[in-house]
């Protein structure tokens, strides 16, 4: 029996457990599939549902976010993410960078297509034997502008939501602190589902930047990377 069959068996078993209301059992099966690196947007979506039913809204949000990273057009995951965020009271609008970051894989495609169109049209415009030299010139300018814009966005957003250092707050009562200690004063309180950028780690603490721009220390167990 190959690993695909094993994966399918586990997948079906997890779905059956969920359907019977055995959310803990379903969650364990889904996590085993994640641990075997059989990533898919459906797997993270279902795992998010299992966490939601277990009232762990932080991890539910994290897994819906993972599902959306793998498939930005996953409407059910979007709806469930909104529901979970509403329940935890995190209704902050997404930043432009995060919104664009959802489509981080689309911009390199646009950049490369427009780059090659611009190059071919420049070559075409330089060939005097072609009678559409002016047309090629205009197309190359338009494609060049699109290329520069999409390249700029690519550089700005980087890997977007697939950034390996991007993490989400998964527990309530999380404070960003001035130092790596419980007694350190808080810089700001973070909400469940709020993204942070991990910078470095020291013991149980991680130095990070909140999406408000504030820098500080956070207990490592209270955040989890979006890219597993």
């Amino acid at each position: 029996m190959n690993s695909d069959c094993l994966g399918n068996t586990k997948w079906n078993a997890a779905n059956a457990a969920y359907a019977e209301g055995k959310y803990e059992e379903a969650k364990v099966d889904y996590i085993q599939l994640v641990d075997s690196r059989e990533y898919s947007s459906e797997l993270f979506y279902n795992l998010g549902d299992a966490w939601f039913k277990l009232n762990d809204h932080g991890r539910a949000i994290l897994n819906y976010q993972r599902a959306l990273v793998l498939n930005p057009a996953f409407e059910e995951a979007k709806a469930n993410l909104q529901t979970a965020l509403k329940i935890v009271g995190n209704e902050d609008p997404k930043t432009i960078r995060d919104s664009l970051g959802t489509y981080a894989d689309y911009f390199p495609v646009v950049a490369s297509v427009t780059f090659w169109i611009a190059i071919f049209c420049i070559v075409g415009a330089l060939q005097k034997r072609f009678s559409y030299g002016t047309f090629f010139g205009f197309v190359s300018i338009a494609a060049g502008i699109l290329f520069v814009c999409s390249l700029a966005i690519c550089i700005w957003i980087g890997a977007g939501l697939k950034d390996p250092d991007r993490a989400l707050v998964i527990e309530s009562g999380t404070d960003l602190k001035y130092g790596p200690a419980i007694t350190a004063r808080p810089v700001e309180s973070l909400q469940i589902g709020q993204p942070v950028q991990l910078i470095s780690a020291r013991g149980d603490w991680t130095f990070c930047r909140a999406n408000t721009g504030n820098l500080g220390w956070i207990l490592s167990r209270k955040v989890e990377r979006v890219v597993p």
Partner: protein
Amino acid sequence: MNRLPGLFIILLGILGNALAEPSISGSLSETVTDVDHPVKLEIKVENARITRPPNVSVNGLSISFAGTATRTQILNFQASSVTIFTYIITPVREGIYEIPPVEVSTGGKAYRTTAMTLKVIHGDPTRSATSDKPYFAELVVPKESAYVGEQIPIELRFYFNQRIQYQPYPQGQYPIIEGEDFVTKKYSDPAEKELELNGRIYRVLIYKTALTGVKPGKLNLQSATQGFLISTPFGLRGSQGFADPFESFQQQVVDVKTNGSSIQIKPLPAGDRPADFSGAVGEFTLTASAQPDKVKTGNPVSMKVEIKGLGNFDRIEQPSLTNTDGWHIYQPTEAIETLDDLGLSATKTFSYPLVAEKAVTTSPIVRFSYFNPNSEKYVTLSTSPINIEVQGELIPKVSSPSPVAAPSVSTQIKPPGVPDVLDIEVRAPVPAAFTPLTKQPIFWIAQAIPACALLAFGFGLWLQNARIASQPLRALNLESRVLRKKIGASINRSDLLQAAVRLLELDCEIRSIRKGGTPPSLEEWINGERLPAEIRRDLRDLVEARSARIYGHHGPESLTEEERSRIISLLNRWRANA
């Protein structure tokens, strides 16, 4: 019938409140203070609904609005509402100041406080010394004592000579207050204004936050520090007047420190602490509403509980519910709407989903306790039961009993209206990767396709251009081959001579094209010194014989083999030597 007198008294109280005349009064926390030592001004409005704080301004006093507190109470069947507007007054010059009557309008009538007097004396002599500096800072703490958990609004003021340009450094960094045993709220965006101090005008950057003592005792705030990148004009000596547009600036990063301060933090009284007290300190009001007011058993009712006022809202937990018999109560959702920059004044709303399990007539009663630092007493607020008509038969319990408890995992049945998620996906999962597209080999392999196409296109163009360029040479070579065949096969003397001379001329042309320059023509070869004399003589004879035959018709028409061999030999020698 026995309830009638009680109802009559309540109605009388409500009527009395409705007819109660609004009143306004003002009070200062201190009537004598020194320069830069702030005092608190409270404007108390009773029995009137005023939402906008009245304007208070006095020349020589810096007055900033600190917050609003609203309280509704029923004492001895007498309902009354009180709104308190708090201001922080910071004197900037010594003198005796009269705060004019503060006016509010309600119901078409205007009400005024009495005038208040504040005497400002010349206080700390070191303070005047600081004002000579191009920049300095101060920590303004409006209270000398507070309770554990009480939020104290404070201000960090950074003064800069008006000719200094400054900006917080690093950008986005907020001041750090040195000290222990306290927590602060997130800073509001700093405000900037101009203040006159000891006859000098300063630009002041004001950071506001609220501080909360976490344990009893003397709370020492050593200082607050903020880094600034400042541009100071050379020769700045605190001079006033217009800036010179050509003057030079010196940039430097400085840490600006405030003075220290201390607050006595008092413990919350333990004696009469209510059992449901969760740590809320401040002044609050409590209201509750429920929708709809007529349902069937099993259908949901949404009960909204609002706690409004001034205090530490982060410590307010869900209020306790009593009179819950017949109700199944789910975990409430929370929402906070802040009413000022710091979130000291706010409204916290708890929305409870309720499901009636049997026919009941009233909603649960909400109970909330807090500590009021002004009256120094615990206060317990309760809502009146809300009339809800529930009809239908008793339904079996589906989850843990009331009051509110964490819903069990697998047995929880969520009524309509309670947020739930869409069901799981059962279709076969499609494998996907978290690797960004630009780090996947397929992306770069795909780039090779148009790159190869571009190279192929370029190679094609080069080939085409090369073919076009070599077209004349190929024509000459072709003619040259035809002439050679003709020389080998012709029996006509005229044709052979003509072909031999043409072949020589073609050879010169081909050399010219190949070398890209202007090599000698056949005439120049014959007349020049580049070939051996014997070949030049034979070539001349050949050309003359061709001319004699073509133009003069001299010599025989027929061709001998010996003559053909001689001509072919000459052509070979020419090729070898030219």
